[in-house]
């Protein structure tokens, strides 16, 4: 058996991964898991003052991790992040687009502000488009993959976060379309729909006091996920050869909270 396919092995040895929004939360959890599986990881972070310490912490743990400043609402920044990754490591095997603007608190459709709409679309949709364009030639060369973050809100709608639901739904079908377009190039595109305790989730709990209780009520496994221990392995799997025949798919990593797929 190919040693690279053994579960629990270093599934990403020699691979290079770029993670947007990698300074904390889900991004850092996935980056850490991928680095632990042997990947060289670049954290693309809007603020160097948070991204650099995160990268330094992982380097101290023996991982090959660096940080590049990147505001995903800037196409130039995304191209720079991709170029810096390839310059540093010679290749790009996986791009994880995880960054998104703050969701804010519960909002009526009638009350959504233009700047909230613009921020959500810019970080989730436009950044996927610009990031995909920048990464495509390198992913094709490496036979790599792209991972987008979606949400059960995009699949079942959300009474409290209608714009978030829209952009997450759009990202999921965006992944399917890219999977169809890029399959011939040997590039896979998949989604993860997580629920995990992150700084962003903590803010959401603050803005919506009943959110945590509702999430737990609907989660058969009875807890909220962990970015490193629960979501990280899903990212490792999708980036690895273990998932080499999977594309256009969504992995729900939410303790069974959404069972509609």
């Amino acid at each position, binding site marked *: 058996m190919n040693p690279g396919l053994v579960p629990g092995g270093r599934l990403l040895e020699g691979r290079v991964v770029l993670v947007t929004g990698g300074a904390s939360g889900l991004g850092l959890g996935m980056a850490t898991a991928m680095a632990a599986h042997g990947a060289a990881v670049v954290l693309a972070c809007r603020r160097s003052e948070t991204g650099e310490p995160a990268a330094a912490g992982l380097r101290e743990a023996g991982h090959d991790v660096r940080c590049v400043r990147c505001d995903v609402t800037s196409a130039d920044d995304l191209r720079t992040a991709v170029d810096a990754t390839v310059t540093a490591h010679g290749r790009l095997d996986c791009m994880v687009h995880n960054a998104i603007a703050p969701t804010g608190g519960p909002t009526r459709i009638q009350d959504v502000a233009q700047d909230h*709409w613009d921020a959500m679309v810019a970080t989730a949709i436009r950044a996927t488009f610009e990031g995909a364009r920048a990464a495509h030639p390198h992913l094709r060369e490496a036979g790599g993959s792209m991972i987008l973050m979606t949400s059960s809100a995009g699949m*079942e*709608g959300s009474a409290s976060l209608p714009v978030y639901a*829209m952009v997450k*739904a*759009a990202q999921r079908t965006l992944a399917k379309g890219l999977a169809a377009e890029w399959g011939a190039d040997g590039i896979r595109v998949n989604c993860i729909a997580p629920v995990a305790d992150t700084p962003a989730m903590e803010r959401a709990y603050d803005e919506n006091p009943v959110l945590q209780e509702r999430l737990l009520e609907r989660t058969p496994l009875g807890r909220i996920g962990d970015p490193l221990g629960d979501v990280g392995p899903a990212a490792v799997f999708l980036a690895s050869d273990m998932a080499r025949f999977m594309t256009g798919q969504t992995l729900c990593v939410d303790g069974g909270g959404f069972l509609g797929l």
Partner: protein
Amino acid sequence: MADGTRTLLVGDGPLVDGLHDGLVDRGHVVAQVVPVRTDGGTGIEAGTGTGISTGIGAGVSLIGRPDLVVHVPPVPASPVPLVDQTTQRWVEACEAPMAEAFAVARACRPHLSDRARLVWVVPTVAMGGAAGFVGSAAASEGIRALAKSAARQWGPEGLTTAVLAVAPELAFPSDAGAGARISATAGPALGRPGDAFGDIAPLLDLLADPAARFMTGATLVADGGVWMAP
């Protein structure tokens, strides 16, 4: 089935023309709102973007508070691989239709009659994605999520939503639509993609009928039997 139903129809193009004629034929009183789409605008607020708010206000002044609002978002004329698209084209294919759908929802909300329904008509590529139409398909799925979110927000107020997913051949300009069909191996079970007047407008009529009052946020697939999942 619903004689005298007051219907606001937002959009333009052959699909909308067929829906208009089909609804009028079935007794609806229809006001059509044609968005101004000269700038690929992504404004969602009154006074921005495509003039949706003004148009809907004018439509309401013609027919009164609508019982049914139907929005047919714009779609690109031809397929282009994502890596070959300009940012402007991406905005027009993906971000602007999503913004227009959101603008329609919020602009029509104050005018809706009791127990009114809001329906979006999108191609089935929303569910399956489509090479060459990545942005349009993504937008359509975003709009499906909007229909679900609006159903959840407005359900307690008696309002309902739905999505009609139609064959790409109907939604996209003729040649482009065939290329966007979800399954390359399976044509429509009924042997044709359908027509707006005779196949789709009656479903809008059905959705406006009290018989459909307990269905909300759902997608009706009307593509002659191509997309059958789940």
